């Protein structure tokens, strides 16, 4: 597990649901085919209403037309991030697009669990709502050891909540590696 990473922020609001993260019409593509899976990057966050896409200004596409990877690698969300469906295509499409971390005030349960068990990225919880403090495009740095998020553009540092129960799975990489470590399945 990397101890530090940095990237530019893409800010979303509260209750970003899985239909916004990846609209159901696109769920037909293969996640294991190397070429086909790029479609998930192309359509990642394409269901977010324009006014909420890249706050505070909005109308900022996460993925530029014709591309499948984003210039933004840290998603800042509000409450109940990832609510709705159990589709693992939601965290998967974000990872394919280049997302390294999501920092939200709270998560919907299945999205959170999928992110952890599938090892797509770390779903951090912020101590307070950050969606109105961080702007899309801000340069961010996350320090896992110190459990902090630094906004280099605004020169501010925030503490993140401890990873808690899922820390061991995150450290192992995914649920399979965790199960091997604990002896539940053969290594």
């Amino acid at each position, binding site marked *: 597990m990397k101890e530090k990473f940095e990237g530019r922020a893409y800010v979303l609001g509260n*209750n970003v*649901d899985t*239909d*916004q993260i990846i*609209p*159901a*019409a696109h*769920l*037909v*593509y*293969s*996640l*294991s085919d190397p070429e086909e899976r790029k479609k998930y990057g192309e359509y990642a966050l394409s*269901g*977010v*209403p324009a006014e909420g896409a890249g706050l505070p200004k909005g109308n900022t596409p996460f993925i530029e037309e014709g591309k499948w990877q984003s210039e933004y690698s840290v998603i800042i969300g509000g*409450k*109940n991030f990832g*609510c*709705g*469906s*159990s*589709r*693992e*295509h939601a*965290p998967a499409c974000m990872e394919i697009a280049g997302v390294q971390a999501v920092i939200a005030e*709270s998560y*919907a*349960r*299945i999205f959170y*669990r*999928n992110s952890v*068990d*599938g090892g797509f990225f770390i779903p951090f919880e912020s101590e307070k709502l950050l969606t109105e403090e961080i702007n899309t495009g801000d340069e961010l740095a996350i320090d896992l050891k110190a459990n902090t998020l630094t906004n280099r553009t605004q020169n501010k540092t925030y503490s993140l909540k401890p990873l808690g*129960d899922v820390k061991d799975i995150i450290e192992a990489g*995914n*649920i*399979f590696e965790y*199960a091997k470590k604990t002896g*539940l*399945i053969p290594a």
Partner: protein
Amino acid sequence: MAMTITEKILAAHAGKTSAQPGDNIWVDVDVLMTHDVCGPGAIAIFKKHFGQNAKVWDPEKLVIIPDHYIFTEDPHALRNVDILRDFVKEQNLPYYYDPGTDDYKGVCHVALAQEGHNRPGEVLFGTDSHTCTSGAFGMFSTGIGNTDAAFIMGTGKLWVKVPETMRFEFHGTFPPYIMAKDILLQVIGDIGCDGATYRTMEWAGDAVMQFSMEERMTLCNMAIEAGGKNSVIEADSVTEKYVRERSDKSYSIEHSDADAKYIFRKSYDAAAMEPVVAKPHSPDNKALARECSDVKLDRSYIGSCTGGKLTDFLAAAEILNGQKVKIETYIVPATREVEHGIRETKIDGKTLQTIFEEAGCHIGEPSCAACLGGPKDTFGRTHGTEVVVSTTNRNFPGRMGSKQSAVYLASPYTAAASALTGHITDPREVMPAKV
């Protein structure tokens, strides 16, 4: 130690005498269900981690029900069903319901019940968030992703954090114009779309226990719309009768102890309930149907795991009988069994099918259809700025297809009443005999 139904079931499946909220435990899985949208992904992960020639832990316990993108020409969607077929053959799975054959059923959550895969006291995981529907049978059921499903395929186990339980009691008798959907939208509106996150929603009270199994399934279906992990209703003689007609496997009925600990309790007067809608674009955006009569509609949609069971169509037909709809109205039975019921069940000597046809409704094939938008050629999908009243479960932006469309969630009574007037209509306005 005093425990709730959910705590008892999880403890028993972890080989423990007790389980408390917050405990992380590995549970043995009784049934894993998957479908055409998530099955292919889960199968790929299973093979990646357990080997190309790996066998699933127990073929009898893996149930595959294609239901999402069935009646479409989309080549990727059709390819995904082929992946399921190949896997079923390779693994010799007995419970697979193949599209295009007499075995095809339709929407997985309703088919699970109808085909006898729901049994009290069991643990069921499914790669679909509305798997919480099965909690109506006094069992633990919840939605998971592809990775967790692949893990179960290989091991028959999954880790679970034992949830805290919220208890919702309804006492007395519901008025005849109230359906389980109204109760659900009322409660989700009261607690908010993350009001039950990580928690169990336990439904109880004499009014709830008067519900049929289909209405109980509706009640449990939308726990996920409040963030809930699972939903549960204690099994009783109604449950046992339904299960015994469909399964000969043994089961155990769990009861919540009188002194079990709840994180939240709320009691409602059943008789005071009114028809409720959820306005765009969130299931917790509650309003009374009678407060929304200024909302002009383009479409009424009656279908899905939430609102596409025989009970739902009986309710719609009561209102549409002998009338003509004013707006496009779509009827999508959840399963072939429901479709059969529509063709055979009669009101005033007329089948529901005839009532719907005479009213001017479009009737589709059993599947998830436009509940979640889906491929462009999906029956009933929105493509523009349609304003829709729907018996489905989600009204997120773009959920039924077009990001510009707006969806009002409602009961089948309200959806049918609104179909007759062209605006959101409290069913009491068009069903005077029942008031």
